[in-house]
């Protein structure tokens, strides 16, 4: 339960960190370490070089850039939790962050670290899929801008090349008439969810759904949008129609393991998605009535 030996590098600027990442063998970056440190302690990861990003102030920020909110990869989960800007403009993220670990891990854990670890049941990747976030991926060679669904390639596998790191996450807030709701089911509070569901809806003048984004986490190798349910939701305004749309999530391909078989995840998907849609719709109505 102790890490194998490595050399820790502590750069203080992003260019230094990128040069180290490009120039050292078998290197990994460490953000808050709330997922990577357990892997090091259990020797599931054994890098020769570890590049610490905690002394690079330029990587930690939450900025209002008008149409978009920019979040530095090293922004602590705690800072998202307490950000008035996130609460006002990206309420889905605010609601989801309260499900991430515990206060003791949110104090150190980062948004970027969670996205790069890409656990199938982690909340932040599900939110970023729902929000269609774009990610800035930097290396000494330059920058790539990737949509979240391309970044999340497979089970705990990102599109990052060995010399690249995630530096910034950009989300486009929905119009102020939207409603958002994030729900999950876990055996104990703070555990990784078995399934999580995120819903964003925007209403037209007749209080019908005009636009929807529905995402599921914990069901498949990576979080995904339930396109069929999104289409079925357009023009709807009652619980029965919401349940019919959510039931389409049962057709999703699902992970299968002895604790939670695929059929169980599929049924849970439909139930949680319906709950998320109802909650998002109620909040959108409340926004409209203000």
């Amino acid at each position: 339960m102790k890490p194998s030996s490595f050399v820790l590098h502590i750069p203080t600027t992003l260019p230094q960190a990128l040069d180290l990442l490009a120039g050292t063998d078998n290197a990994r970056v460490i953000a808050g370490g709330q997922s990577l440190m357990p892997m090091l302690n259990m020797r599931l990861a054994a890098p020769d070089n570890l590049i610490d990003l905690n002394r690079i102030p330029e990587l930690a920020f939450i900025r209002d850039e008008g149409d978009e909110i920019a979040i530095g990869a090293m922004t602590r989960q705690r800072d998202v939790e307490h950000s008035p800007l996130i609460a006002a403009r990206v309420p889905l993220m605010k609601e989801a962050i309260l499900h991430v670990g515990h206060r003791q891990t949110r104090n150190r854990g980062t948004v970027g670290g969670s996205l790069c670890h890409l656990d199938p049941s982690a909340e932040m990747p599900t939110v970023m899929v729902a929000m269609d976030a774009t990610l800035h991926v930097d290396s000494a060679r330059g920058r790539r801008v990737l949509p979240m669904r391309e970044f999340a390639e497979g089970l705990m596998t990102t599109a990052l090349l060995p010399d690249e790191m995630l530096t910034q996450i950009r989300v486009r807030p929905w119009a102020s008439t939207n409603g958002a709701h994030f729900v999950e089911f876990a055996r104990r509070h703070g555990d990784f969810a078995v399934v999580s569901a995120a819903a964003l809806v925007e209403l037209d003048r007749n209080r019908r759904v005009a636009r929807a984004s529905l995402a599921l986490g914990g069901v498949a190798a990576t979080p995904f949008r339930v396109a069929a349910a999104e289409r079925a939701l357009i023009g709807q305004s009652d619980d029965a129609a919401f349940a019919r749309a959510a039931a389409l999530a049962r057709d999703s391909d699902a992970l299968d393991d002895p604790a939670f078989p695929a059929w169980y995840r599929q049924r849970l998907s439909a139930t949680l998605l319906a709950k998320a849609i109802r909650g998002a719709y109620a909040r959108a109505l409340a926004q409209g009535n203000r």
Partner: protein
Amino acid sequence: MSPNEHRITLNVNGTTREAIVESRTTLADCLRNQLGLTGTHLGCEHGVCGACTVLVDGRTMRGCLMLAAQAEGFRITTVEGLSANDALQPLQQAFWDCHGLQCGFCTPGILMTLTELLHDDPDADEEAIRLALSGHLCRCTGYQNIVAAALAAVEQLRGNR
């Protein structure tokens, strides 16, 4: 020194301490093995049990999920730093009075979390206390008395204000 060693200066419980650590040495191992502060306990060593929780600039963090070399420049507080001259703090006294510890293994981490919680939210209610404690495991399952102790400490501290 080899490249995977670091000479570090840590501010622990208000005292400046120096140590030579390997890159891979966790903060918790450094506190226990190099600095002799064995009040910080190590249970699971992967961030789940919460026994190794310490304060880093007043914020709770897992001592097993942070490297000692990453802790330079921060104010580290361990359970040894909670009280001066063997006089128990109200929170510690409440644990004594309410039988809030059984074997005591998880207690240091829990005290650090409740120290942070009561600093942030001096009027913390049972729900807030249980939520904060959800980041800790007590294998004696003594949770009821731990919650009772925390609530007693809130009352005591309210009286002191």
